């Protein structure tokens, strides 16, 4: 390709990227902002914020999913949250007349503590392309020793479900299914082939990745260029809102 043509191609690629914020009707938020949401969610958990602040938090953390094309997942999570809130409220209101509700109330409270983290985490992973997530980790200057395992984890996740199904099929044909009768043995029968397979894949993967430069020292770039745009700064401010509410309100 001639130099002029190559330069033109590079310029085109740059334009395409800047236009990618609202692509195909979906909102794409910088992954660093979503990781920030995860941190705020953890803070909310530690500080035991009030129910109203928690509700505001969960709604805000679910926004990336709602606007990012994963509305159904967000709806499920929010529905689950609403049910937990209702159980919690019921166990407090009817504490006198129905003491047995306490058990459900306590469980609901425990789950409610974790839900903002779960929603923030799901938002981060469902709506972010793996490459963008890795780019975010690189921009945060995390060492390779953390980034490379993160990439490999993201790569292995989908294969585990597939492997598990194959192993269950084999177990079914061999007639060695009884999970309830021999739970530990069944776990072993699933884990050993799963891990052996993972070890084999890891071996081939290392060889392939070495030939593509995994072992190179020096600065690595990222194909995704992360830039904080107005929408991202606004989202960041919105994410900090629950903490602000928690401090300001009595």
């Amino acid at each position, binding site marked *: 390709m001639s130099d002029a043509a190559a330069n033109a191609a590079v310029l085109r690629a740059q334009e395409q*990227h800047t236009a990618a914020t609202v692509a195909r009707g979906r909102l794409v938020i910088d992954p660093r902002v979503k990781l920030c949401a995860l941190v705020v969610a953890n803070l909310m958990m530690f500080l035991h914020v009030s129910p109203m602040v928690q509700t505001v938090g969960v709604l805000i953390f679910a926004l990336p999913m709602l606007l990012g094309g994963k509305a159904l997942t967000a709806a499920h999570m929010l529905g689950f949250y609403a049910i937990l809130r209702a159980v919690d409220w019921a166990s407090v209101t009817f504490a006198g007349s129905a003491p047995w509700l306490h058990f459900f109330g306590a469980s609901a409270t425990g789950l409610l503590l974790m839900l903002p983290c779960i929603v923030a985490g799901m938002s981060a992973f469902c709506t972010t392309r793996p490459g963008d997530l890795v780019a975010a980790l690189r921009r945060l200057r995390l060492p390779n020793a953390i980034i490379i395992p993160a990439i490999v984890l993201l790569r292995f996740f989908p294969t585990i479900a597939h492997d598990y199904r194959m192993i269950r099929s084999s177990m079914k*044909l061999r*007639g060695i299914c009884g999970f309830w009768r021999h739970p530990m043995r069944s776990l072993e029968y699933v884990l050993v082939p799963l891990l052996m397979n993972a070890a084999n894949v890891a071996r081939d993967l290392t060889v392939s990745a070495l030939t593509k430069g995994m072992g190179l020292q020096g600065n690595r770039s990222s194909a995704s260029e992360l830039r904080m745009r107005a929408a991202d700064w606004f989202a960041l401010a919105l994410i900090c809102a629950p903490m602000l509410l928690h401090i300001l309100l009595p």
Partner: protein
Amino acid sequence: MTDIVCELSDCTFRYADAESGAALRNATLRVRAGEVVVLTGRSGCGKTTVTRMLNGLAPEHFAGQLDGRARTADCIAGDTSVNNYVTRVGSVFQNPKTQYFHANSSDELAFPCENVGMEPAQIRARISERLREFDIEHLRDRSIIQLSGGQQQQLAVAAATMLDPRAFVLDEPTGNLDADAIERLRTMLMQLKCAGNTIVIAEHRLAWCAGLADRYVLFDDGQIIGEYSAREFAALPAQQLRDQGLRSRDLSEQQQRIKRIIAQAESAETIENPALLSTKNLVVGYGGRGLLAHITHRRAKNAFAREVPDAELRGGRIIGLMGCNGAGKSTFARTICGLGKPLSGEILLDGKLAKPAKLANNAAMVMQDVNYQLFADSVREEVMLETEMRGGADAADMCSARERCDEILRELDLLEFADRHPMSLSGGQKQRLAIATALMARKQLVVLDEPTSGLDYTHMMQVGELLRRLADRGVCVLVITHDEELAAHFCDRILRFD
């Protein structure tokens, strides 16, 4: 004087953990710029070792002792780190499923460029360029695990071109692919060849190399025993190649035979040999039947349904299932084994309507990756697994069961490994172990999924003989395969799925 890109000068290589002798002995080879050279020979002949020396993996990653000099561009194996080979050599390996590093296809293409610190916009431009060049725009930004093996391999070749290497080194790239996928891969490599690239391919499946290769180098037991131009190679007698463990150069004879087998009407032997399994109006498939789907009137994203013409499967026969990927071969096999419910229609076992649980009792499957089905700590324990789990047998029963177990192991040449861990066996031995467990459980149907993928001629024939011995015991053997040589030689019947 044309540039010599890859050069081996009197190279001898011995792997560090090798029990036997050298993997490669006194090999001398020169590959000129723009040439396509095919290194061929049976499994273990040394061709893979040569590819590893050409892309810097040996002796750095695959430790061993190297005598002699192996050079690719300006890199010397042993002196130059494999990191420096990254921009000189693009490598493609056999297994499409274990080669990719990222979960997403665009990230995988960007990976080599990111590692060398290329400008982001330039990386994106180059990705677009390659996708357009190879006509694989439909592979942009996809989840790699959802691609077919052929598409994954196309992606691997595209990824190898990302840094504009001086040479490409491919190690049996078509081992696990069907005919269509092989054709697409061949087209990509022809494109690379026409652009003047240097390509070295280690292969024993020769049919697809015709017209692509300029030169063939024949290996046997670590030594180069012949170098031929494309024309000279085409003139070699077929038997000589088969003796060397190579697959046929020309598969048209096998394809004719397969057509004849398909067209053959089932001989009328219903009385002495009633059908083990028969299907009526069977529709196999998955997805789109859940409760949620009924309520929302929406089919699940990957729903699939296929009508199957009524079939009768008899014991003592080897039945081939052939057809392109995605046509329903695996789904049919799984339904017959009771691993999935049919969407509609009936399956009869010994003349009686059978539910999936009964079918599962009757069937065994040897998967393409046998690692998913070995559970015990030793070979003998693996074969005795169901017997031990059932329990409740007295000492005499257990004794006779153990005798049967040893008998089966002896027949399958596994008795000497009886105390070894199943995962320490070779691929072929694991296959035989899986068959041993099926024999022990007295299964009447054994389904094998691509048992010969990646095997050279000798080993393919061995697997075929094994299937024949199985069938002679009265077992109904169902083989899912796109290996035309296996099907032509050994299948009594072939069901075509298209």
